[in-house]
């Protein structure tokens, strides 16, 4: 019993000492990304982009301290990390995450704590509306993306569509809903089939889709399941074009899909091999530093830190979170590597171009879809 009491006291003392956390006088930014788990490539790429931006900012003389936390591609962890960064690290702004479901959690915490949040890549429509004036993003939203994909398919003359939806991800259900509206508006027919995150056996879903004999299949989830599904569906879906959203933009996609003759298109924010000389120069620098071509997440990561820094420079006191939030929302025509970013729109979502990419031994640039107002 004595040993137990001593142990309890020791634990209490440990907790009290852990409460040091001296708050120094710098500009602190918290970054929450999926560094491990189902969407790990997004986190890794985004962080690479952020690091490139950080180095450039430091060279210019802009000082800030970044703290990176991993949300493990899980919703619950995202919320916890946000609380930690705000309450224990005392960050002045938050950047992240990638999966819309996770950003939702972070947004709630940020809103109640009064800390501005910018997400680089979460596309779900209601995020910034529900989040309030302190929550913004630098990518397009799913309403736009859905229309891009639907119009792309309709332009190719495809009329019967089946969408494969991940019921456990709000990104997936949201995107599918938007595609459906736009596609129906172009006179196409639309049905949905389902799976769940972390599933591995897609035989039945694949069969269900094949039975419908569609002209085109919309894949509305993330690459980890989607890539596998394509691999497993090699015979059943032969000859049917596949169209996916930015959830498929990952260097791992090729590995997961394997050898395939399928035509796979996907929409995304940024293509490292787009015909813009500025983009190509940036991509070259990225490749030299990290050994591979940048994906969309890298470009978005780079831009999100730059946008935050740009807003901070416009503030009288960048550590005043309310003022910082207002400065962010006043960002107008910022020339990002992923496009021009203006957050003055009513829901703090920029109007940007999308790129369509084709899978051809890797992700290759195919076309640009200009932003439609």
């Amino acid at each position, binding site marked *: 019993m004595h040993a137990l009491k001593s142990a309890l006291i020791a634990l209490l003392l440990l907790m009290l000492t852990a*409460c040091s956390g001296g708050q120094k006088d710098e500009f602190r930014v918290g970054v929450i990304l999926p560094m491990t788990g189902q969407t790990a490539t997004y986190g890794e790429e985004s962080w690479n982009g952020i690091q490139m931006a950080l180095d450039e900012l430091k060279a210019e003389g802009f000082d800030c301290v970044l703290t990176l936390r991993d949300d493990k591609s899980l*919703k619950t962890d995202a*919320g916890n990390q946000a609380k930690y960064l*705000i309450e224990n690290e*005392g960050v002045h702004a938050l950047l992240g995450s990638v999966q819309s*479901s996770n950003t*939702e959690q972070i947004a709630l915490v940020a809103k109640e704590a009064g800390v501005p949040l910018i997400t680089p890549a979460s596309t779900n429509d209601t995020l910034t509306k529900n989040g309030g004036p302190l929550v913004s993003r630098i990518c397009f939203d799913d309403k736009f993306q859905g229309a891009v994909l639907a119009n792309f398919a309709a332009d190719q003359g495809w009329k019967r569509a089946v969408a494969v939806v991940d019921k*456990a991800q709000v990104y997936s*259900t949201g995107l599918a809903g938007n595609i459906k509206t736009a596609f129906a508006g172009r006179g196409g027919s639309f049905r949905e089939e389902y799976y769940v995150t972390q599933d591995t056996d897609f035989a039945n879903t694949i069969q269900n889709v094949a039975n419908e004999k569609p002209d085109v299949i919309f894949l509305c989830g993330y690459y980890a399941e989607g890539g596998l599904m394509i691999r497993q569906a090699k015979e059943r879906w032969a000859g049917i074009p596949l169209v996916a959203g930015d959830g498929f933009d990952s260097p791992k996609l090729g590995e997961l899909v394997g050898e395939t003759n399928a035509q796979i298109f996907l929409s995304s924010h940024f293509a490292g091999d787009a015909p813009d000389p500025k983009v190509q120069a940036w991509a070259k620098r990225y490749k030299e530093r990290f050994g591979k071509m940048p994906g969309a997440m890298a470009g978005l990561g780079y831009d999100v830190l730059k946008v935050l820094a740009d807003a901070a420079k416009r503030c009288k006191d960048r550590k005043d979170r309310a003022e910082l939030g207002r400065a962010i929302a006043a960002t107008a025509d910022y020339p990002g590597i992923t496009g021009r970013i203006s957050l003055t729109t009513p829901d703090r979502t920029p109007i940007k171009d999308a790129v369509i990419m084709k899978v051809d031994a890797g992700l290759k640039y195919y076309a640009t879809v200009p932003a439609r107002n």
Partner: protein
Amino acid sequence: MSGELLWWLNLLVGVGIFTLLAVSLNLINGFAGMFHLGHHGFWAMGAYAAAWLTRECAGSLPGPLLYVATLGFGMAVAAAGGLAVGIPCLRLRGDYLAIATLGFAEIVRIAIQNLPQETLGGSLGMPVARVLMAVGPDTMVAFRGLTLLIATAACSLVILLIRNYIRSAQGRRLLAVAQDETAASLLGIDPTRPKVVAFVLGASVAGLAGALFAHFQGFITPLDFQFMEMVKMFLIVVLGGMGSLSGCVVGAFLVIATEQLLNRAPEAIAEWWQVEFPLLLALMIVFRPQGIFGRREIGDLFRRKARA
């Protein structure tokens, strides 16, 4: 300094919620001897019931009143769940009961996830409006403090209730049935009734914990109620001692505190903890299976000293 206070409040509310869960689990597993692996299902039912009622009635009732109403509603829904699961499943023994209850909890989670989004939010999750009081950067401390007060009150009441129940005639019958069902029935004790009562009681307390959780978090998703949480509850009960109520409180504090401390620890330590935590639990089971308190209560600590 306010950041630290917020951290402590967050921690203590978590301890409160898990104490409720542990105490109710202890009632079912420890006192009633029923091997129950689906407690997180009742927790989820309570949380979602509370969230649903909050959404339906926000505005038509004054905030704090609605808050209390949702607590009661959460308890009722979870209790109904306990009844629905308990009556058929209590015929099952040991491992089979464990699997059946686990299956039930998973069904609850999948059902919540797959119901249309308008009903319970599906995979997106469900926001829970702040009805107790407005929450913003200035009121955060007050909000957490108030929640902690409510949680503490709930814990005290529940522990008192369970303690008295165990000491009552009904409780004795339950313990007898748990020890040896055949012998008890030979003595004229109906084996199923006390078990069902204990099960429903445990379920409703889990529902209460769920409702508190929903209001505190402000947003719940099916992923908040996964099997890992069940393991955590189990760990707390085992750590504290399967027959001890105060053990649950101490166990909850130890487990939640460790979890929160690790959240702030450098990544290197936090990573290895995932391996050490079950390892410690396993070692505990081997070398001290009765947990910290065994069947004793914290009061006994002081009583013994007095006697010496």
